């Protein structure tokens, strides 16, 4: 069982790790794609900026040429100023575009732009300057040269435009490829994640089913083994059980009230170490073995000694032990003989307060030390309260345990009748521990009826 649990935990951890790694890969992939696409978009924006600047450059070139024409036709110096302004703007703009092309590592377009700027320089030297020096000279040859420059600049600019457009198209295609790749990769991870999630779900369902089956079996066993409230003459019997969690509901707490021959009644509460089906089966062993031994022995000390021997032989596990309280109650005299094997959660509530019944021996299953019995007389109205350590160990929000003193205070304040008292203790434990209950809690209360009227009514 332990190996199976270990395998289950390992399997769950493994699948969870797979899921987490898959998710991490998917997230990282998406982030990388986003970064790459953002970089491509930034580059594309720069190229588009260069294209816009190039159109602006052409406008400045035309401004230069028109200014020169204006000057040659009118000889108005205004056009000379306009020419120089356009020329300065052209040079600055060309330098700006060259910078962008250099940043974007577009060497081809940069060379073309350089050729274009060189043509413009030649045009200034061969066409513009002679005209600026002498606007009266015959224009025909200069016009032809101007036409030649215009044609070649048009060609060069067309080449620069084409280079930029090709680069932009390449970037668009690259972005599209990245998006496609991202879509495929994402689809792949979604499928992987989905398959793993399905596997995980199947695995978890199987574990839950197994756990549920085990829990059902254990609950059935516990219900079968736990005593009902057997009526005792002139006594009230109350009991309650509180599970800490679903898993702990299959713990090893057991109590029993069993009528032996004559006026004798066996009273038992035990807390077996361990949980699950193993512990539940042991509760049955404890309950019926104690009953069997109690039929042959009158003394609780003898019952505990024999049980200790039988338990050690039957279980053979040094890590399993039982703390238990065994009492034999005479229902006519209300004399109680009891033995407490390491079970310090037994109390007696009298009219004047609550006392803790002392331990009379070690826990069962650990050593072969002798067990002793003690005898107390119960008076009408007295209540024997037996609990498991789930009550003393219940912790408040600050982590402080209730301990014996706290338990005794609770018992003192609890309701008069046996069942009322048991229920009150459960409510108080739940209120104190909330979701922090560490152990399950069993309570058995036996109250000697107070008045004749009460006894008659019972």
């Amino acid at each position, binding site marked *: 069982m332990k190996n199976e649990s270990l395998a289950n935990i390992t399997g769950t951890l493994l699948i969870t790790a797979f899921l987490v790694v898959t998710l991490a890969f998917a997230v990282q992939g998406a982030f990388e794609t986003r970064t790459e696409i953002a970089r491509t978009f930034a580059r594309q924006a720069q190229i588009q900026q260069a294209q816009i600047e190039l159109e602006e450059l*052409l406008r400045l*070139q*035309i401004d230069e*040429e028109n200014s020169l024409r204006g000057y040659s036709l009118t000889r108005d110096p205004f056009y000379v100023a306009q020419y120089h302004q356009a020329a300065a703007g052209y040079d600055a703009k060309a330098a700006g575009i060259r910078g962008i092309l250099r940043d974007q590592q577009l060497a081809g377009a940069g060379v073309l732009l350089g050729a274009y700027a060189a*043509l413009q320089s030649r045009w200034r030297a061969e066409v513009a300057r002679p005209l600026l020096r002498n606007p009266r000279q015959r224009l*025909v040859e200069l*016009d*032809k*040269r*101007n*036409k*030649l420059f*215009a*044609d*070649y*600049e*048009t*060609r060069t600019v*067309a080449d620069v435009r084409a280079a930029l457009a090709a680069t932009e198209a390449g970037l668009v295609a690259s972005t599209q490829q990245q998006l496609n790749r991202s879509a495929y990769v994402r689809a792949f991870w979604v499928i992987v994640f989905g398959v793993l999630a399905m596997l995980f779900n199947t695995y978890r369902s199987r574990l839950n089913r197994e756990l549920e089956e085990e829990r059902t079996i254990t609950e059935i066993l516990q219900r079968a083994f736990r005593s009902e409230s057997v009526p005792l003459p002139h006594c009230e019997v109350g009991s309650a059980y509180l599970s800490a969690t679903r898993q702990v509901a299959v713990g090893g707490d057991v109590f029993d009230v069993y009528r032996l021959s004559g006026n004798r009644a066996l009273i038992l509460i035990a807390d077996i170490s361990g949980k699950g089906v193993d512990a539940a089966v042991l509760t049955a062993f404890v309950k019926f073995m104690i009953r069997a031994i109690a039929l042959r022995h009158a003394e609780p000390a003898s019952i505990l000694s024999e049980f200790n021997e039988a338990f050690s032989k039957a279980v053979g596990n040094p890590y399993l032990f039982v703390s238990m309280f065994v009492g034999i109650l005479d229902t006519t005299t209300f004399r109680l003989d009891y033995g407490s094997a390491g079970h310090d959660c037994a109390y007696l509530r009298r009219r004047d307060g609550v006392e803790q019944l002392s331990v009379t021996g070690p826990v069962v299953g650990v050593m072969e030390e002798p067990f002793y019995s003690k005898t107390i007389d119960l008076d009408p109205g007295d209540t024997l309260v037996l609990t498991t350590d789930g009550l003393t160990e219940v912790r408040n929000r600050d982590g402080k345990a209730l301990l014996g003193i706290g338990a005794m205070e609770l018992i003192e304040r609890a309701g008069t009748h046996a069942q009322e008292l048991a229920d009150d203790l459960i409510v108080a434990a739940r209120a104190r521990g909330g979701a922090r209950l560490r152990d399950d809690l069993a309570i058995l209360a036996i109250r000697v009826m107070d008045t004749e009227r009460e006894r008659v009514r019972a």
Partner: protein
Amino acid sequence: MRRVASLLLVVVFSVTPAVARADCKEHRGDKVVLYSTTDDPSVLIWDSRARLRAYYGASFDEAQALLPHSILVAPGTRATVISCVANYIESPIFEQPEDAIGVVISSGPQRGVTRWVLGNDVRSPPKGHH
């Protein structure tokens, strides 16, 4: 002498293959207007279609050397088509090959001159212009 040369050119244009003319966008006798769509709208007209083709395939310096064989006419100069060679001029700057069109200039200082011009620089005149 000039008149003789013009007549000679007319004869040369007249023997241009009819097949080529069939694919041309302009036809003999069409009245056209010369106008360039480059930054400078004036038009270069050439003394031979070979030089016209060479100009558009040449480097800048080679083109500059060809310039004495051309005349620059003002945009809007009218002309009459006398010949056409379809798809004759191939250049990286054109998406499609361009026609070489032989024209006789019919307006401006170059009136009566016969030359070759790029197909793309030839436009149909506005209605009723001629």
